[in-house]
């Protein structure tokens, strides 16, 4: 399945069916990461149930140093 992640097209294995799977896939499940899925910002709770489809737009953002 192909997703657009942070602006880049990326092929992910079919085992990646949900946002949770996606975070596991990138080994981000332990990190503070915020997910925007097709322009909808997801609460942590909904990662599990959010199913990904081919062509979905996903933004993965986090906190960085800033003033």
């Amino acid at each position, binding site marked *: 399945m192909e997703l657009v992640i942070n602006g880049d097209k990326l092929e992910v294995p079919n085992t990646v069916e949900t946002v949770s799977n996606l975070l596991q896939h990138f080994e981000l499940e332990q990190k503070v990461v915020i997910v925007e899925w097709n322009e909808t910002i997801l609460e942590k709770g909904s990662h599990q149930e959010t199913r990904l489809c081919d062509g979905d737009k996903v933004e993965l953002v986090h906190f960085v140093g800033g*003033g």
Partner: protein
Amino acid sequence: MLKIGSYEFKSRLLLGTGKYPNFDVQKEAVEVSEAEILTFSVRRMNIFEPSQPNFLEKLDVKKYILLPNTAGAKTAEEAVRIAKLAKASGLCDMVKVEVIGCQKTLLPDPVETLKASEELLKEGFTVLPYTSDDVLLAKRLEDLGCHAIMPGASPIGSGQGIVNPLNLSFIIEQANVPVIVDAGVGTPSDAAIAMELGADGVLLNTAVSGANDPVKMAKAMKLAIEAGRLGFEAGRIPKKRYATASSPMEGMSVS
């Protein structure tokens, strides 16, 4: 006590987390500063380096209140999106509204700042807008319901200190919410001046992270802000054009 919305703080120093030489220095500077509020920015992850360290992981997040900023936003819409992303982390509901209108001076756009603040207040955020020292703009932000007003002392990272103490004091006089001087502070005395004007707090970043010795400067800023606050509370002597003797003026007898 500094009260912002429903939060209370012993420290009046808000510390930014950008541009430290390394995480160890930063961690020590943060501890020494005794800041309780730390600002952060929100950015895309580099998903191909998950192992890439992140300062947040070095912190005991329970000990601090996170204040994400909307840096990078040029419009109210962008600022609102960044704020919502930050809140979705479940780690914070405060936001520093920062909508920059000029990339050279990094000064805020008054209209977009008002719009973003209004929207985020509707969404239930605790809203601290970074604003210019325009007195009536500060008033309008307060009238919207902002939980604190954060006028700049001088351009971000410029280290020029308090360029316009008059406007800051007008803003402080009129405010019924905390006024936190944000941006431009370069030295401990700059921070002390802000507090002596009656500010409720100071937010700074580069002055510490860019100092030759960030840890020492963090300590200096902590002390200066306490000193300035105490000085404000203690009530300074009036300025006089001429001198007033501190020693008894009657001279010694010349035998």
